[in-house]
């Protein structure tokens, strides 16, 4: 029990440190827009979003109760709005933020419906 916990800590620190080292050393290359300023910063930002999204997906898969899964799904939707804002800066195309607005409202409605389902009553209260 004790040894397993220590091994899990060491594995987690290795994975987390490895991903952070990749973020610091190699920014994600953008294929189409090479001449924008501060592209290295935005590439690293998208790496951080990928890492956080994998943490949310881990919680969706493992979570012991349904409430954990709904919380993780809500946060995954909110982070996609932030990703849309980053893509608006990095590509210079303003329709990405339209996707963000639509995603906020859709995520709100789906979260309310899932919470109502979790409560266990009828939908027509």
């Amino acid at each position, binding site marked *: 029990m004790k040894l397993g916990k220590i091994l899990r800590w060491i594995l987690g620190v290795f994975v987390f440190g490895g991903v952070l080292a990749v973020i610091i050393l190699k920014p994600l290359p953008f294929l189409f827009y090479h001449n924008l300023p501060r592209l290295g910063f935005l590439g690293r930002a998208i790496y951080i979003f990928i890492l956080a999204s994998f943490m949310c997906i881990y919680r969706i898969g493992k979570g012991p*109760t349904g409430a954990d899964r709904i919380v993780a799904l809500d*946060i995954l939707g909110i*982070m996609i709005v932030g990703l849309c804002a980053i893509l*608006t*800066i990095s590509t210079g195309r303003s329709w990405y933020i339209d996707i963000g607005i639509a995603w906020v*409202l859709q995520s709100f409605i789906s979260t*309310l419906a899932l919470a109502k389902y979790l409560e266990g009553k009828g939908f027509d209260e």
Partner: protein
Amino acid sequence: MNDLIGFILISIGLVFDLLGCVGLVRLPDAYNRLQAATKCVTMGTCSILFGTLLVIGFTAAGMKVILCMIFLILTSPVASHAIARGSHKSGVKLWEGSVCDAYAEDNK
């Protein structure tokens, strides 16, 4: 100068998003996870959107960013409250180290 302040705000928001997701993985209970994840919305994503507004300026896309922030601030606490109420009513257990449960005492 506006650019620099915007990128600093985006960095703060990214750090808050990452720490909120670490809390989502590490904390022991559904309610604790909800409490860690709500910080990720209000300070993380709203800070990223405000930094985006400062970087791209008050154009048409900037107005859309302000609209997105207003929607986010209005809808996110309602959704968190609905999740917490629904999970408490459906009988999700609290962590065994929790001190008190005020909602159950009120309903008694």
